[in-house]
């Protein structure tokens, strides 16, 4: 087992969410849910993180921001789209300024459904992301060997 499963650091970016999912992400850190039990730290800095949690859909103005932040994360990394908006744009999909879900801009590994997504669901998503992370780490090491 690689250590990445034991210490997945996350950071959270609010795409154009209504705050509903945001505060639920924050609630995960709180005494009731305490996601730090799994070694998760909310770093707030893309360079230090393994998991990017995006809430809300992508709009014209934050498209570049999301790309930049994603690009600044070191491999292996995982993107989790939290909530309906991040999945498809949700109720706002028809708005003129919405490009759509997160997958329109960066590759998404996992979707957590809900409007707003519940903390339990978010924690579950993070835990499921660990396997993806480990897989990616393995792939990365293999890639290195073959190169």
């Amino acid at each position, binding site marked *: 087992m690689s250590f990445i499963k034991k210490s997945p650091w996350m950071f959270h970016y609010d795409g154009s969410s209504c705050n509903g999912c945001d505060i639920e992400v924050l609630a995960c850190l709180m005494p009731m849910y305490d996601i730090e039990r799994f070694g998760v730290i909310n770093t707030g800095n*893309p*360079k230090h993180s393994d998991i990017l949690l995006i809430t809300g859909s992508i709009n014209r103005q934050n498209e*570049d*921001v*999301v790309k*930049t932040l994603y690009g600044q994360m070191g491999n292996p990394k995982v993107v989790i789209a939290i909530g309906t908006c991040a999945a498809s744009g949700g109720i706002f999909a028809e708005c003129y300024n919405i490009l759509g879900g997160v997958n329109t801009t960066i590759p998404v590994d996992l979707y957590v459904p809900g409007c707003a997504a519940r903390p339990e669901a978010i924690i579950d998503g993070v835990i499921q992301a660990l396997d993806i992370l480990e897989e990616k780490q393995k792939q990365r090491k293999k890639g290195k060997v073959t190169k």
Partner: protein
Amino acid sequence: MTWITFLIIFPLLPACLVLLFKSVSIQKWVVIIASALICIGSVCLALTCTQAEAQYFRVTPDIVNKLVATGDITLALVFLYVCRHLPLKRYWIPLLVVVQYGAVVWYDLSGRVPETTHCLFVDNLSVIMALVIGIVGPLITVYTIGYMEKYHEEHPEVPDRRDQFLSAIFLFFSAMYGIIFSNNITWIYFFWEITTFCSFIMIGYPQTEEAVHNSFLALWMLLLGGLGFAAAILYASSVCGTVDLRQLLTMKKSVVLLPVLLICFAGLNKAAQFPFAKWLLGAMVAPTPSSALLHSSTMVKAGVYIVLRCAPVLHGTAAGAMVALIGGLSFLAGSALAISQRDGKRVLAYSTIGNLGLIILCAGIGSHLTLWAAVLLIIFHAPAKALMFLCVGTVEQQTGSRDIEDMNGLISRMPLLTIVMLIGLAGMFLAPFGMLISKWVVLEVLARKNPVLPMIVIFGGELMLFFYVKWMGKLVAVTGPQPQQGEGIGIEWSALGGLAVLTVLVCGLFPFVGIYLIEPMYGCDPMLSRQAIRAVAIMLGLMLLLPLGFFIPRKDLVHVDLYLSGANVTDPHKFMDSMGTARDCSFKNYYINKYFSEEKLFPGALVGSIVLLILMFSMEKL
């Protein structure tokens, strides 16, 4: 004896030669050869004259004394001549000249000044000073050639009087050697005033209004020190009955303390301690070599030197403690004031004031151990500070600014110069380089004294660390590929390189300096345990080896852009601002004007130091 005479007399020759030959190329060769000879002379002196005991030399009194008297008169006339059109109606300047020279010359001619037979001497302190002057000085002189050439290209409005400038430098060498080898205080006084004159000439060199103003400021402040010296001569000859430095210093303290304090007053003045600090700051208008040579590494050291000479008398007296406190105050105030400055030369000027303050602090206490530390400080300070000045001068010529903020990312633009500069900066405050080693010694020594003194050293040292590190930070910031500058630094490299090597070298050699030069003089155990020396050696080794690590090729590094809160644009050093345009994200240092501005601290330091000065003289009887 030969070498002493050589060192005092010889520099006069190139001083005349550069005035005679106006051709730049001839001047260049004269300067190079003369500098080399001065350097060789100093080293030879060190090799031949290093002994535990001071050696005194008999000089035929008649002619030389006459010569000095004539010199005094000439100098007085010269001073009066330069005062012929005073700016701002400072009538007290000629008055100062007339009073002190009138008194001294009258005393001299009327035969009231006692005869001294052994006018010249040499001991290890003189040797160390000679080495400092004779190695750092010539390097700066060589640098001057290249610097002045570009200086005049860039400042066509300044009349080209390079010959006078070079001549003044050599005259200054002669005077400095005169000061450190004279055993007769009238002689010292004579040479002392020559250095004042050189300083005046050099500060006024650009001939701008500011430069003229500052040169006169320096003149009257330094003449004030001269006045103190003159008073010391009068007192010594009439009350103590001798002007022989050695005799004076071995007399009973109660008798001799006043003249010694007067000399210290002159020393404080020349070392630009508070309350006289202002002239040194004003002196920064002068071309950089003069700042490096006179106003940081050598001439101001003359002030320190004379206080060091007087230290045995100061030891254990309340007045001596006051001298120490003035030094301590200057150390604290100088270091604190440098924080709020962004002009590179001004920062260096303040840090010079601070460092000299530390030396004075040690000298004022006057025990053998503190003197030992003071000498170390002199040795380490000179090359590093000179190097820094020359670097700032070069940067100013290359980029057109000596503002520290404009040096942001210098390592991308002028890597080699930056590395040299970093060595200079590290030399000023970082372990295991010189200044820090001496601070360490000072702390070790002062720890057994009154806790005020170590606290002054600790706080001053931390303040110094603050402004030097933030300066270093500006230099090392990598701002991305930018056009390489730094073409056309020619002969200056020899000086820069030489000083950089010297800065590192003295750290490696300091135990030997301690053992062979300082210890015989003060006869004390330097307290540096083997173990500590080993620690220094390890750190120095690391400092030298670690940079090599940079050349180890490293693979699999992934370059990413800066973290700019996601507001990055394609240019890695720009971000998207609120108005939707790309903007530079350059960062400016902190200057903490709220606490460390000149307006707030300078008057306080002035008042404090004046009070201390008054206390110093009023405690003469204690």
